[in-house]
């Protein structure tokens, strides 16, 4: 419909072209019977057209979001309107709906097809698999279609929409035990349980700002929870790394390729356990002597390097659980934060009462003390870690910090100091003449 030279340029090259896909979608919609669509036929074409104009002008053409949604929910829909509605009428309304993905994003084709059918009928036919938070994102529909889409999602597909706004966001987890030998807890199970248990927090904003949970099965961090969740759950263990000495010898002999063959593209030379594992161990707690690999587990910081490098020989311990870290967020306002280690180890057994109790303590403090649009991490910075620990009833411990404070500006409290703070200048002057 529109002239899109720059976009067509993007059809070239080997990487899957979203433009080609869009064009195939547009073509399909052109051919589609009228009764198979409830919104404009040429939404994709208008989207492409507006995109080309954005390239030409170097500026977006979406208006500042409007507040739309489904009844009784405070999130899950992002309102969006074009600022060139006359030129691109089919995308004048172009709201997105965030569908709560199944944990670690396994699907069957039935489900996906029913989403496709519904979305072809009631939406633009465009989507994101997936959004950055993890939702299955349906891109572009009109305000009238929001309720019907929600109805079909819940009634026919049995799935709810996800988070947006000042509430719990859609939790997300790594593939974990489903297909990974490193997983230290059931990431899917915990993610699912907390998502269900906190449905109210997810849909009905009562928080100062957004709040994100993410679940990584081990310190490799495949769902990047440490960088982008207010509360990051990362699998870990307490006991010793399990060692299969024969397999260690297997690696040394060259029977197994190190790091499961992840470096197969280049000749890095023969595997050298000293150089490739022992010397790279951050706590230098490994030794290979007399054909035996030993680990001083008290010194190990569970970085995963040795395990990643020799997955057939080494495995995390069996006394497993999670570390809980708090406060990651993107740069707005005061700069990005990574999550900070608050609980070194917690058991993960359904129904996870220990975890829920901690979550609620944190929320309670945040809801009480947090300012409008203040993320948990920012609140922690504002009140200071010592005060925060007191509020969530955690004992201070050295693993919470990289190092103790360098400045001596300790904020002693009045009750810490014998005699308190109320002093009498007269009494002081009896001892000290002016």
């Amino acid at each position: 419909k529109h002239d899109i030279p720059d976009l067509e340029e993007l059809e070239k090259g080997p990487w899957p072209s979203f433009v080609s896909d869009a064009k195939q979608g547009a073509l399909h919609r052109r051919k589609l019977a009228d009764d198979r669509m409830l919104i404009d036929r040429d939404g994709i074409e208008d989207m492409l057209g507006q995109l080309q104009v954005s390239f030409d002008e170097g500026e977006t053409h979406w208006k500042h979001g409007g507040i739309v949604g489904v009844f009784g929910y405070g999130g899950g829909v992002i309102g969006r309107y074009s600022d060139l509605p006359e030129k691109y009428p089919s995308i004048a309304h172009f709201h997105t709906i965030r569908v709560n993905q199944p944990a670690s994003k396994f699907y069957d084709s039935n489900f996906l097809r029913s989403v496709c059918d519904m979305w072809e009928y009631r939406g633009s036919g465009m989507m994101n698999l997936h959004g950055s938070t993890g939702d299955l994102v349906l891109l572009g529909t009109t305000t009238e279609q929001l309720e019907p889409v929600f109805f079909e999602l819940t009634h026919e597909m049995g799935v709810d929409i996800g988070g947006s706004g000042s509430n719990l966001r859609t939790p997300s987890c790594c593939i974990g035990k489903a297909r990974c030998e490193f997983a230290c807890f059931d990431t899917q199970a915990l993610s699912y349980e907390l998502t269900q248990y906190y449905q109210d927090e997810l849909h009905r904003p009562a928080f100062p700002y957004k709040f994100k949970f993410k679940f990584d099965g081990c310190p490799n961090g495949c769902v990047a929870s440490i960088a982008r969740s207010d509360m990051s759950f990362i699998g870990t263990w307490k006991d010793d790394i399990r060692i299969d000495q024969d397999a260690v010898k297997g690696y040394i002999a060259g029977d197994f390729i190190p790091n499961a063959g992840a470096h197969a593209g280049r000749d890095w030379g023969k595997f050298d356990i000293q150089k490739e594992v022992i010397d790279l161990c951050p706590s230098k707690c490994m030794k290979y002597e007399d054909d035996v690999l030993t680990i001083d587990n008290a010194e190990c910081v569970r970085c995963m390097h040795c395990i990643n490098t020799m997955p057939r020989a080494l495995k995390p311990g069996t006394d497993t659980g999670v570390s809980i870290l708090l406060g990651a967020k993107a740069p707005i306002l005061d700069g990005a934060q990574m999550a900070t280690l608050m609980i070194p180890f917690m058991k993960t057994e359904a129904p996870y009462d220990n975890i829920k109790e901690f979550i609620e303590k944190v929320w309670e403090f945040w809801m009480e003390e947090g300012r409008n649009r203040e993320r948990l991490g920012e609140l922690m910075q504002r009140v200071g870690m010592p005060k925060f620990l007191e509020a969530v009833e955690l004992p201070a411990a050295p693993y919470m910090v990289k190092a103790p404070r360098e400045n001596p500006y300790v904020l002693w409290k009045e009750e810490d100091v014998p005699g308190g703070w109320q002093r009498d200048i007269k009494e002081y002057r009896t001892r000290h003449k002016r």
Partner: protein
Amino acid sequence: DPQKNRLTDLGPRHFWQYFPPVIQNNYGKWAYHDVLEPGVLAHVSETGEKVFTVRCGAARFMTVQHVREICDIADKYCDGFVRFTTRNNIEFLVDSEAKLDALKKDLQGRTFAGGSYKFPIGGTGAGLTNIVHTQGYIHCHTPATDASSMVKAVSDALFEEFQGMNLPAKVRISMACCLNMCGAVHCSDIALLGYHRKPPIIDHEVIDKVCEIPLAIAACPLGAISPDKTPEGGKTVKIKQERCMFCGNCYTMCQALPLSDKEGDGVTILAGGKISNRISMPKFSKVVVPWLPNNFPRFPEVVENVKKIFNAYAQDANKYERLGDWAERIGWEKFFEKTGLEFTEHLIDDYRLAYDTWRTSTQFKY
């Protein structure tokens, strides 16, 4: 009536139903894995069962047509199951090598009308994987650049790296179209970030109607915004422009303060971040190229600079060494020397925690 028999608070579908049988049977029992070739993983269970995974690149923007094609493939080879990774790749899982070969061949053969692959296999091990990104001009109101197009351009340029595992370690490239950083790209080996460079324009006529002025004022981290009056006596704000750092937070709070501008907007490149706790602790990416123009649709300057970083790293780093660990080992002086990037005053921190980045030592390399 969509309000009838309203169902709410269902949450997501339960995951178990979407696990293929081989996953259900071996849940929590995986013993080890092998990357058979770029894009192909074999996981072996304690039970002896195996699952083979083929990972395919994808634009996360998809039409229903494309998703239906994915479903067809899943039906044909994978009992109808398919999954998506945390970086928007598609994974097809099969339980035998025979199925694997057929599947691979099929995937390799599928291309879009324009010629690009529909399902390029790769993204595993010590290679480059899918570039996660955000909405850009396709759906958002605050971007300083476009996302999908830049990602396509960079992915094309580094396509071989997606299909290879020739690097010292994983390289994660991520892209976000404004400082809100919806991809949380701040801990990526290479991060591409849309950035404004002009302070907001004030839409004096409507600001008092469409915004809560006190919220807009409070939104500015640098206190650059203060209340003002229009000549007509209406409420508005003024902005100390020289104090503005173009973060856009005021625009998020108030639509009458748009920032975007063809000449002002562009791209910042950050490098050296990581997420994993492997060997070194997770770290933030650092700004290494302060600004590049939005040269649509292929962003040649961005591509060129990414390649400079990428190539210097690929050639120089040790096995298992992530980009940031490499930069720290050789020193940032040498990073700029080896990548050929220019160091400018813009790369020196002058924000809140800046002092911690100053070099308080005589240790340096000429």
